[in-house]
Structures are given as structure tokens and as C-alpha cells.
């Protein structure tokens, strides 16, 4: 994306900001404020004008501190965590902190002063922590200097706490609100010249502060993108060809022309049609009634059976990509006195965010605007510019808090592209496009399908001496980032098995190790799904470790520990989970434990599940203990919330999640056929955070991957039968069938 735009912007900057947080109802006006001239209202009350001290910090005369958050908020708590980090260095009053989202257009106009907007890969905090803390620290230095100048004393004689500045020798005090206008005129110090606080001394960061965005989520006042209302707005319902790769041939506008509220059906692109009407319900009814002719193409022959066979073939294919090849694995397995082998599989999954995809646009010949839930505001801006044909500086994106992201609302921005194509056909008219749940579930970028064949050799002493991991399945990079998937070499599909430390390193040392990937792509669109490939790879490895431990006649925990001497951080987290769960201590009759550990997103995770299996095969997960080392724990309560959510996300995939393909299209299209875990099935979750303060790891994703294997291993312990296929089969039925 170009960053070469020049524009006189800062003096107008507030026009473009979206107020997003704290005050109940504060977000309500967003769609309304901008066209109706918030600027004018602000200009009429210059005394109350907020002062931008620097890009990150705006201070109001009443000492309210507005902290700018470039990353998206989708429930993961990044908005609150980043505000805590800025507050920590700024030394303002946490009780007077609110937040706002700078707009991507404003950021480009200001040479990307807020850095990256992308919010994925559990990077929201760990990638921006340094510059946002420095942003807060720079503002603090400027505010203190302004007070020092006012009193004509050295800044070194000043202290500050909760936004109140004190001149220690005289006891004089002032506040950030009073000195902000003078501070804003000062030349900022070099951010790199400032020494940040030792995280062990944190007072606001590192503490379980309440979220800043909860209040408007309790009374219906938070305006999600789907709730946007603009004067004269029309609504659009949309239908993409049910078969991926198929085409739109024609549709018959005459058949719906007389339906209530309908404007007309429009071609969106080569595969998609939409109906525009006065309300979304009218648009949807007309779309359902619209005669549409599709050219479904060759892909209409594809079925899940074909796809499964295609993926299975990769398990034994020759000449595949070997990411790791240490020792002589195949020979070592052949020579081992005990051999173990197993094949696992996981299906396509949908993100199923609770807020379906939607986007509101207003396109005129010289301006394009979008109101949208996006994990990447800059990607949304780029899509808006590309599709509208207008240069970036004539485009703007207003970000809303997302009703769920999980990777669906990241780079692709397909729904923004569609909305712009509709909006262009109604120049000057705001168009709100909303996908039905059925559209959302059948036109996702799915978690890719894969299978894995594991083979191991165990020596006479019960040690794992050789391990072959062969993953076969669809590549995300091959679909959306082909440069990273050349010649079938795609390390990302082997996430979690890496040799290199720091990101997603395998936690075991095995003298003979072969880690291979057979790329087997399909016609189904794929993309990152919360936890991406750590979920499947963690399941494959950790379920197999239990099978290997059983063959070695070892306790699953001790079997793992013996391989982890060179990976002390992995081991410490595994031990923390085992200790908290009381591994090895007696359980109530019928309850069994399973354990798992894995690494992703720079963080170390482990889980212990306590599970019972009824005589009817019904699996009940009673309790799960999860341990996480994410380096620094910015908000322990929100980390716990993410871990609890990870358990629910992981258990939905364990018990229910499966999309199948028939006639080239996704069969399951709503929550009755793609069930999600509900409250009654939620186990008690205990979170153990063991930060080591020597790195910054992610939080939103890394713990999902240990959920399914811990549960499956507990079922294995309960029934004696390994579970190798998700979603979970009824273990008793599977046992009887075997």
C-alpha cells in the first residue's frame, strides 16, 4: 500500500476519529455524527477542545485522557490492553481513560503514524507494545516539561501520578488537562531516548483492569457495523455462486420488481448478485425470490469423498516436502523394537462469527467511505480504493468493534469489495450490505482440511527414538499467498513443528525426526481460523504422544517430560498445568485425565482435561486446566477470558465442527447443521498464567490447540480407544464398530 500521500491533516484530525468506548451510548452517534458535522459543534466550544499531545494521546480540559488504538477490537481485549500500556508510561488516571480508533485514511495522511492496523496472528499487543508504550512516555515527558516551563523549574523536580503533576520542593500541583495545550506545542523527545519501565514495576499494565468497552455492550447502545444507519440509506442482500469457482449467468429483475421496497437486483461481480431495497428484510425476501441462473462449472462435481481421498493419498505419496529431516527416521523406526502408527483427520471449519459479514459504503464520484468491522483497517481502505477506482486519499474507512473476527475479517476484505461494487451502482446513496447466516457459512475462507500419519519407533527402555510426521492437506498460502507456498514447500502448514525457537517450536527432542508436508489443495477457499494450523498439528502430535506413551508403557506426562530437557519453557508450562490439575492424584469414579502441550504465536500452552464417558458414550468434560506463558501478561483477567473462550472454541471443533462438500458446495449452512458449544456443555476452566517476563507472546490463539488433544487423550484413558478423527465420534459406538 502506498504511503506517499501528502495532505495537510493534523488540524482536522478529529473529524475522522470514531469514538468507540466507555461512555454508554458513546458509540451510538458514529454513523450519524460524521455527516452532520461534529467539527462544527466542536468549533463552537473551543474551551472544551481536546488537545492532541501526540498521535497516541489526546487530553481534554477535564483531564479525560483519550488513547488512540490502531488495532481492531473483536472481543480479544486488545483495546483495553494497549490502553493499559500507554497509561502505564503516561501516568494518567486510569479512571479517566477512554479510547478511540484512528482511521486508516488519517493514518496514511500522517505517514502511518499509528503503524500497522492489522489485527491477527495474536499480534495486536506483542507487535505494538514497544511503540505504544513509547508514545505514552513521550506524552508524559512533554506534559511534565510544559508544567516545568510554566513554573520555571527543572522538570527533574516534578513527579506525576494519575495525571496530577507535583513540584516536589514547593508542593504546587497541576493536572494534565491544564498543561496539555502548552505541552502540545513542544518538540517531542526522541522516543528511543526514553527508558521504559521494568514490567515488574507496572501498576496499571499487568493488572486485571476492567475492560474499557463493556458498558455499551450491556444495554444495546454499542453500534456494530451491522447497526449503522445513514440518511437515505438502502440495504443489500447478496448471493454468491453456491459452487466455488462457478459464475453468475443471469437473473430476472422483472420477477421481483413489484416486491415491497425493492429497488433492483444488481450484478456485483462475475460470481455474485445482490438485491437492493429500502430494508434488509425486503432485500432478502426479494433475493430469495429472484430467479438466478448459475454456471456452476466443473467444481460442481466435487464431493467430500473425493476431497478426503485426495488428502489421504498425500499421506503415502513419494517426493513430498520435508521441513525437518534429522537422523535417519525411517531406518530408526524400522529397527525399533516397538513401533506405533496412527492416522488422524480434521475437517473444514467455518469461523461463524456471531455478526455475519456486512459493510456499509457511500460511493460518490470523488469520495468512497466504508463503515465496517475489519481486522485490518488498511486492507479495508486498500479494497475500497481498488474497487471504487478512487485514490487512497479520497477513501476512508470507519472501523467498528467487531462482532467476532477469529481470522475471518483479516486480509481478504471480500465483503468490502462486494459492498463497493453495489455502492458504485447507487452513487451517493449509502448502501448497507448484510450477508445472511447461510451466505456467511457457505462463503467463508475455511480452516483447511488435513490428515496426518504419525509413525514412531520406541526403544527397549521405552524412549521415543524416532518420529515421522506426515501432514497432508490444503495450504492456506497456496490460496492467498502463493509466494510462500512454492513447489509444495509451505512451512506454515507445519506450524508448531518448527526447529527454530520463538514462534511455534516443537517442544520435544527426538534423535530421528522427519516432518513432512504433502500439499493437497482443493477448490474450497481457505484462510486463517483462530489458531490456524496449530490446532490440527497440536491435535495430531499430542494425541499420538499418548498413543506412543501407552506403547512405551509410560505415564503420558513422564513420557513427554523425558523429551523436553532442551525445552525448559515448554516443560515449565506443562508442569504448571499438571501441578494445578493434580496430575496423578485420585479422581472421582469414571473421571479420567488427558494432557497436552504445544506452542504457537510465541506463547507456550498446556492443558489437562477431566472427562467422563457414559455407558451411552456421552462425553462430559468436567474441568479443564490451562497453563500459558505469554511472556508478559498485560491483563491477567482478560488473558483468562481468552483462555476460557479458547476452550469453548476448541470444544466446538472437538465435538461438532464439520463442513462437508457435496455438488461442489458447502452443505452445512446454519447453526442447526453446524452446531456450536452451548453453556450447558462448558466445563469449569482454570487458567494458570506463568509469565517469564523475557519475551512478548500472543494470547488470543495459542491455547486453542491444546484443548482437543487433552480431551481426546482423556477419552482414550477412559475407554482404552484412541480417538483420531474430528469431530468426535461417539466413543462407545466407535468402540463397538472397531
Amino acid at each position, binding site marked *: 500500500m502506498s504511503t506517499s500521500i501528502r495532505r495537510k491533516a493534523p488540524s482536522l484530525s478529529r473529524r475522522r476519529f470514531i469514538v468507540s468506548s466507555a461512555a*454508554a*451510548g458513546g458509540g451510538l452517534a458514529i454513523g450519524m455524527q460524521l455527516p452532520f458535522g461534529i467539527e462544527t459543534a466542536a468549533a463552537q466550544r473551543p474551551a472544551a477542545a481536546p488537545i492532541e499531545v501526540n498521535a497516541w494521546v489526546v487530553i481534554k480540559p477535564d483531564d479525560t485522557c483519550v488513547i488512540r488504538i490502531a488495532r481492531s477490537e*473483536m*472481543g*480479544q*481485549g486488545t483495546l483495553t490492553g494497549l490502553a493499559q500500556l500507554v497509561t502505564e508510561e503516561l501516568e494518567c488516571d486510569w479512571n479517566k481513560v477512554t479510547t478511540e480508533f484512528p482511521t486508516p485514511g488519517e493514518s496514511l495522511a500522517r505517514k502511518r503514524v499509528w503503524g500497522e492496523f492489522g489485527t491477527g496472528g495474536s499480534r495486536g499487543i506483542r507487535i505494538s507494545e514497544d511503540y505504544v508504550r513509547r508514545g505514552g512516555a513521550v506524552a508524559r515527558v512533554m506534559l511534565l516539561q510544559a508544567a516545568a516551563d510554566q513554573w520555571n523549574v527543572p522538570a527533574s523536580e516534578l513527579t506525576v501520578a494519575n495525571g496530577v503533576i507535583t513540584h516536589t520542593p514547593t508542593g504546587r500541583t497541576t493536572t494534565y488537562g491544564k498543561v496539555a495545550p502548552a505541552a502540545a506545542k513542544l518538540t517531542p523527545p526522541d522516543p528511543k531516548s526514553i527508558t521504559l519501565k521494568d514490567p515488574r514495576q507496572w501498576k496499571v499494565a499487568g493488572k486485571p483492569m*476492567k*475492560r474499557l*468497552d*463493556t*458498558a455499551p*455492550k*450491556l*444495554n*444495546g*447502545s*454499542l*453500534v*456494530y457495523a*451491522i*447497526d449503522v*444507519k445513514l440518511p437515505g440509506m438502502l*440495504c443489500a442482500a447478496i448471493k454468491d455462486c453456491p459452487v466455488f469457482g462457478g459464475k453468475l449467468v443471469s437473473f430476472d429483475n422483472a420477477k421481483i420488481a413489484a416486491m*415491497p421496497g425493492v429497488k433492483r437486483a444488481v450484478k456485483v461481480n462475475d460470481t455474485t448478485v445482490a438485491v437492493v431495497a429500502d*430494508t*434488509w*428484510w425486503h432485500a432478502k425476501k426479494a433475493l430469495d425470490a429472484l430467479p438466478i441462473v448459475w454456471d456452476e462449472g466443473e467444481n460442481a462435481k466435487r464431493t467430500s469423498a473425493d476431497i478426503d481421498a485426495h488428502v489421504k493419498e498425500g499421506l503415502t505419496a513419494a517426493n513430498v516436502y520435508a521441513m525437518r529431516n534429522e537422523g535417519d527416521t525411517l531406518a530408526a523406526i524400522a529397527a525399533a523394537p516397538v513401533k506405533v502408527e496412527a492416522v488422524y483427520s480434521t475437517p473444514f471449519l467455518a469461523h*461463524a*462469527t*456471531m*455478526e*455475519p459479514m456486512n459493510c456499509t459504503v457511500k460511493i460518490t464520484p470523488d469520495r468512497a467511505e466504508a463503515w465496517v468491522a475489519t481486522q485490518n483497517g488498511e486492507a479495508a481502505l486498500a479494497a475500497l480504493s481498488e474497487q471504487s477506482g478512487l485514490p487512497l486519499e479520497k477513501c476512508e474507512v470507519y472501523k467498528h*468493534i*467487531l*462482532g*467476532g*473476527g*477469529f481470522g475471518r475479517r483479516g486480509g481478504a476484505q471480500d465483503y468490502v469489495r462486494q459492498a463497493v461494487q453495489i455502492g458504485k451502482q447507487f452513487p451517493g446513496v449509502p448502501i448497507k450490505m*448484510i450477508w*445472511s*447466516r447461510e451466505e456467511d457459512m457457505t462463503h467463508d475462507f475455511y480452516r483447511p482440511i488435513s490428515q496426518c500419519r504419525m509413525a514412531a519407533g520406541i526403544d527397549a527402555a521405552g524412549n521415543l527414538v524416532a518420529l515421522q510426521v506426515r501432514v497432508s492437506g490444503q495450504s492456506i498460502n497456496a490460496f492467498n499467498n502463493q509466494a510462500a507456498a512454492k513447489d509444495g514447500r509451505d512451512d506454515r502448514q507445519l506450524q508448531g513443528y518448527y526447529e527454530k525457537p520463538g514462534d511455534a517450536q516443537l517442544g520435544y527432542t527426538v534423535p530421528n525426526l522427519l516432518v513432512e508436508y504433502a500439499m493437497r489443495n482443493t477448490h474450497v477457499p481457505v484462510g486463517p481460523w483462530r489458531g490456524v494450523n496449530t490446532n490440527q498439528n497440536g491435535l495430531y502430535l499430542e494425541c499420538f504422544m499418548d498413543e506412543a506413551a501407552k506403547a512405551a508403557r509410560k505415564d503420558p506426562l513422564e513420557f513427554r517430560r523425558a523429551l523436553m530437557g532442551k525445552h525448559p519453557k515448554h516443560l515449565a508450562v506443562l508442569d504448571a498445568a499438571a501441578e494445578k490439575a493434580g496430575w496423578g492424584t485420585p479422581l472421582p469414579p469414571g473421571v479420567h485425565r488427558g494432557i497436552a502441550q504445544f506452542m504457537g504465536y510465541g506463547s507456550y500452552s498446556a492443558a489437562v482435561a477431566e472427562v467422563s464417558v457414559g455407558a451411552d458414550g456421552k462425553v462430559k468434560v468436567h474441568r479443564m486446566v490451562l497453563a500459558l506463558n505469554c511472556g508478559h501478561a498485560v491483563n491477567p*483477567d*482478560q488473558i483468562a*477470558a481468552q483462555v*476460557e*473462550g479458547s*476452550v*469453548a*472454541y476448541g470444544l466446538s471443533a472437538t465435538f461438532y465442527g464439520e463442513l462437508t462438500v457435496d455438488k461442489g458446495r458447502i452443505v452445512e449452512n*446454519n*447453526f*442447526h447443521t453446524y452446531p*456450536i*458449544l*452451548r*453453556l*450447558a456443555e*462448558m466445563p*469449569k*476452566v482454570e487458567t494458570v498464567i506463568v509469565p517469564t517476563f523475557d519475551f512478548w507472546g500472543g494470547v488470543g490463539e495459542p491455547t486453542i490447540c491444546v484443548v482437543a488433544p487433552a480431551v481426546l487423550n482423556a477419552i482414550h484413558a477412559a475407554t482404552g480407544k484412541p480417538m483420531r478423527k474430528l469431530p468426535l465420534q461417539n466413543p462407545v459406538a466407535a468402540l463397538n464398530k472397531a
Partner: protein
Amino acid sequence: MAKLNINGKVRDVTVEADTPLLWVIREQIGLTGTKYGCGVAQCGACSVHLNGNVVRSCAIPVSAIKATDRIVTIEGLSPTSATPIQKAWLALDVPQCGYCQSGQIMAATALLAKNPNPSDQEIDDAMTNICRCGTYQRVRAAVHLAADSMPAAKRRKSAA
């Protein structure tokens, strides 16, 4: 034309008889706290109260609503979020993305109105709304917290 009593205010709306109550609330009345999640009464994001009972408004045609029926949406509970459920939700930071929480709060409020001291099993049975972020552990804790915050006499009555 239909007459609807929503949050104590009677409103005339002009819609086709088969329009789901959800879309009347969102698009005609303009109250957007009630959410669309599935359209088939599966997820509960659209939950509102109809004469004190929690219902899924996406699957109720407006023609099924009588002028005497009392509809309450999330906006009708307490604009300052002062009900025991809303206060408990705030105290435990229940919401993550928040999109399903209007429905969760409506379901929990209806539960406590009928059963001021629900057991875990009763919470399991009553709270069937989908939350994709997985806030269930806190939803359960907040229902208990709200119940505990209510006058003891009311709770004893229910337990008896």
C-alpha cells in the same frame, strides 16, 4: 399496519404480515441492540421478552403479535444498565465481542424473573444462546452473582 407495545411505548408500524419481529424492531423501530445471528431461532442473539417470556424474535412473524402484547428489548431493561443482571455482567466483564450479549442478558433476566435463585442445572436449561467468543463460564458466574445480589426474601421464596 401493526400496533406494537415495545418498551412501554405503543408504535404503529407498516410492514408485511410475515416480517419477523426482529426486523421490525431493528429496521422499523430503529432499536439495534437486538441482533441478527441466524434467522432460524438457533442462536438467540435476537432474544427479546414477550409478555415476560424470552423469545427469539427472528422466528416470530409480526402478525403473531397482538397490540396488547408487551415486548421488551435490551434497550428497555435499563438505559443505565442498573438491573442486577447488567450489573453482574459489568462486574465480571462477561462480554468479549459483545454481539450475543443482548440476547444473553435478555435470557438471563427472564430466568431470574421466574427463578431468582437458579441452580447450575437450571442455568444450563435456560441459557441456550450461542456465544462464539465462549463467555459461558462468566455468563454462569454472573447469573449466580446477580441472584446473590437480589433481596434475600425474594430468593427464599423461589427456593421454597
